[in-house]
């Protein structure tokens, strides 16, 4: 008995101590006040976090430290909790010197973050950042777009944004098994009628679910390749200078009618609303499906090709042209990235004691050297110049420890996900996409980039008041639209009721008010 009591006492003691420690564990990382040290809050990709503790172990940041003499103390939020921890950081008001996050989505917009005293406007430090300044003014063809997306509505620079370079913005589109097309003597489908024909032939030859994928893209606003054929996007898009909502426009009903027809004939996956990635994977790999509504270059094409390579060298999944109604048309709604990412913008906070120096450090990312650093790493270590082009060393492409290209690159660069500075350099894509089919696909889709850009919504800022109205409208609107669009596709709601659907959107869900707010935001954007 005595022994038992003693044990329980010890247990209680341990518990108490544990509770105390749990309460005060994450207070360690505070700048030591050294003039050459800056704290920098940014997320660390989960796949990199298994190999390193912080970006200090990544070659490009080691190079930058050597070059500038500035030491960066990285603070990395736990993977998957970036948004919560960002909010906690704001609430604590104990800011690091630099924060890399999506400042566009800060409640009230980036201007509000400046007014709230969270971050500083960079305008008065632009002379410390000659490369950034040149990038934003006239150095590139896209400088104007870069600037508009990096400034608040009143024209102040709010941070060092993540810019896309090159012309290959489209990262996904319809994909199809070319070997099966050849087997059944079919041409690569171009028009919607071609697609219907191809999918029907597949179906008649025993492919149970000719096309699979997930059209839950309706809910996250991605463009829908097949809606694009009817001249509409899945959600909000620009038509000239007018903001429009896809489901409210003429073509959308025809798009739904097509989907409904394909659904009834069993040409598209009946589970297309509830699909899970694993189910799609198995259908494609087992050959139950021969086409994808949305085949992403890396996560679909690259993965499937790698999986089938050894087993069946003739297996050939490749991106198809974006579908159109009549041959010769151009589908203007590809799935593409913006020229300036909404995420991964470094802002200098009000807590930074020497903003000029921090700005100087960030500016390194916007020079030619910075572009090489972010995309290719340090010359001689991760790449070599061959005939004037950067070529990754074998250690990156065929890693001796079995790391994927993605993982190997992350140890040297920030090429594989959005980063402040320049992203998606052409030579990076050419080497990162290892399969001919991938390169062929993104070159094919390049034709859609220019018109796609004119329809893409830029980084718009909502005032606090606007944001309040928008969030109220948004949640119900999305619920209703997602639900009703599904009912139209699977036939539980007749398309004859489509006008009623639009009426309901207008009368009950305040869609016009929402549209007007977006239009105002766009007008502010275009006039700055």
């Amino acid at each position, binding site marked *: 008995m005595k022994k038992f009591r003693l044990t329980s006492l010890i247990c209680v003691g341990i518990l108490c101590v544990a509770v105390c420690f749990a309460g005060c564990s994450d207070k360690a990382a505070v700048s030591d006040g050294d003039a050459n040290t800056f704290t920098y809050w940014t997320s660390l990709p989960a796949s990199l976090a298994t190999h390193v503790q912080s970006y200090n172990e990544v070659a490009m940041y080691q190079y930058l430290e050597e070059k500038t003499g500035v030491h960066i103390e990285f603070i990395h939020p736990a993977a998957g909790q970036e948004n919560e921890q960002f909010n906690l950081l*704001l609430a604590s008001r104990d800011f690091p010197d630099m924060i890399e996050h999506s400042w566009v989505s800060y409640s009230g917009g980036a201007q509000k973050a400046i007014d709230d005293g969270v971050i500083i406007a960079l305008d008065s430090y632009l002379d410390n950042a000659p490369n950034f300044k040149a990038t934003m003014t006239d150095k590139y063809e896209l400088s104007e777009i870069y600037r508009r997306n990096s400034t608040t509505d009143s024209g102040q620079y709010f941070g060092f944004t993540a810019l896309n370079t090159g012309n290959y913005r489209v990262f996904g589109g319809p994909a199809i098994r070319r070997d099966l097309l050849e087997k059944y003597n079919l041409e690569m489908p171009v028009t919607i009628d071609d697609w219907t024909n191809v999918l029907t032939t597949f179906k008649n030859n025993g492919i149970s679910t000719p096309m699979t994928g997930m059209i839950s893209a309706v*809910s996250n606003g991605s463009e829908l390749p097949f809606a694009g054929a009817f001249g509409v996007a899945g959600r909000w898009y620009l038509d000239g200078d007018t903001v429009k909502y896809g489901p409210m426009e003429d073509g959308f009903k025809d798009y739904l009618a097509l989907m409904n027809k394909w659904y009834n004939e069993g040409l598209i996956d009946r589970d297309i609303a509830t699909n899970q990635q694993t189910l799609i994977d198995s259908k494609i790999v087992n050959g139950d499906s021969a086409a994808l509504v949305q085949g992403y270059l890396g996560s679909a094409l690259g993965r499937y090709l790698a999986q089938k390579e050894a087993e069946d060298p003739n297996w050939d999944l490749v991106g198809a042209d974006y579908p159109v109604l009549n041959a010769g048309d151009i589908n203007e709604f590809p799935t593409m990235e913006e020229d300036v990412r909404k995420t991964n913008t470094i802002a200098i906070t009000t807590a930074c004691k020497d903003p000029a120096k921090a700005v100087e450090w960030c500016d390194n990312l916007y020079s030619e050297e910075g572009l090489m650093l972010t995309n290719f790493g340090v010359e001689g270590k991760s790449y070599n110049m061959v005939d004037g082009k950067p070529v990754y060393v074998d250690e990156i492409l065929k890693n001796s420890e079995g790391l994927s290209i993605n993982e190997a690159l992350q140890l040297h660069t920030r090429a594989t996900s959005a980063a402040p500075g320049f992203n998606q350099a052409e030579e990076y894509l050419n080497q990162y996409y290892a399969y001919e089919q991938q390169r062929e696909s993104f070159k094919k889709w390049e034709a859609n980039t220019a018109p796609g850009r004119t329809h893409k919504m830029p980084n718009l800022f909502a005032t606090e008041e606007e944001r309040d109205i928008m969030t109220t409208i948004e949640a119900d609107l999305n619920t209703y639209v997602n639900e009703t669009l599904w009912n139209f596709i699977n036939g539980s709601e007749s398309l004859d009721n489509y006008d009623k659907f639009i009426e309901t959107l207008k009368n009950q869900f305040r869609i016009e008010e929402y549209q007007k707010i977006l239009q105002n935001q766009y007008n502010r954007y275009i006039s700055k």
Partner: protein
Amino acid sequence: MAVSKTVTQKKSLMHTLGKEWQRNKYLYILSIPIIVYFIMFKYVPMFGLTIAFKDYNIVKGLFASEWVGLKYFKEFFTGIYFSRTLLNTLIISAMNIVIGFPVPIIFALMLNEITNNKFKKVVQTASYLPHFISMVVICGMITDFFSTDGLISVLISKFGGENMTYIGEKDYFRAILVGTDVWQGFGWGSIIYLSALSGIDEQLYEAAAIDGAGKWKQLLHVTLPGIANTIIIMLILRLGQVLAVGYEKIILLYSPQTYEVADVISSYTYRMGILNGKYSYSAAVGLFQSVVNLLFLVTTNKISKKYTETSLF
């Protein structure tokens, strides 16, 4: 006179407390972490509920945010989906209680009749297992099993049904949701009844047997009255969670196809509050849920006290 009485009372109270402390001090020490836990994580956050009445802004903080009164409550009650989510919540909750509540009791009664101890242990352990699997894994299994060509869909088609995605069908969603809830929880839920069963005096059974009661009569007149108190307490507690249909499982299983039957208050609030960052709104809904739940708890407790003389407090 009165004064001296209170003094002696106080003294004797102190005395009893001291004695109590002497006797059970390790138990009290042992309970400290639990008490600290409740104060820190249950009572302190209650002050945060004020954000339900404020226009909470994360930068301004709790105190500097403006008061807006009942704005968010109004928004919720007049919302387009209020009646639908409330109805879904009540239906799913009612199904859970009507089907899910008796199953552990029946299971415990059945287990109690098993005399082979080894077999009993195996069955018991097997029935606990689903309780320990993470919700995400369970939901992954459910979507997999109930999809086209999934385990259960194939089984159903073997018996003449259709091989399709049952989890995406409005007609089956609630049944799957509640059915799997029962499957996941009945083993674990039966523990408390088993312990109550083991507390019944053996002599009562002997006496009943001598009086000529068979197994069924024994069950009706000895066993059930013996655990009636436990059942009532558990029912009161369960009714106290009428509106608290958990959102984790639902948001993992539903899709726009099944919103109509699956969208409950908590999943709706999740989409509204967390995905859209409307903290005040979700706090208001949370407060509403808690108040209704408390009302249910207190009412059932009162009713039970009046008619069965069993109550929580």
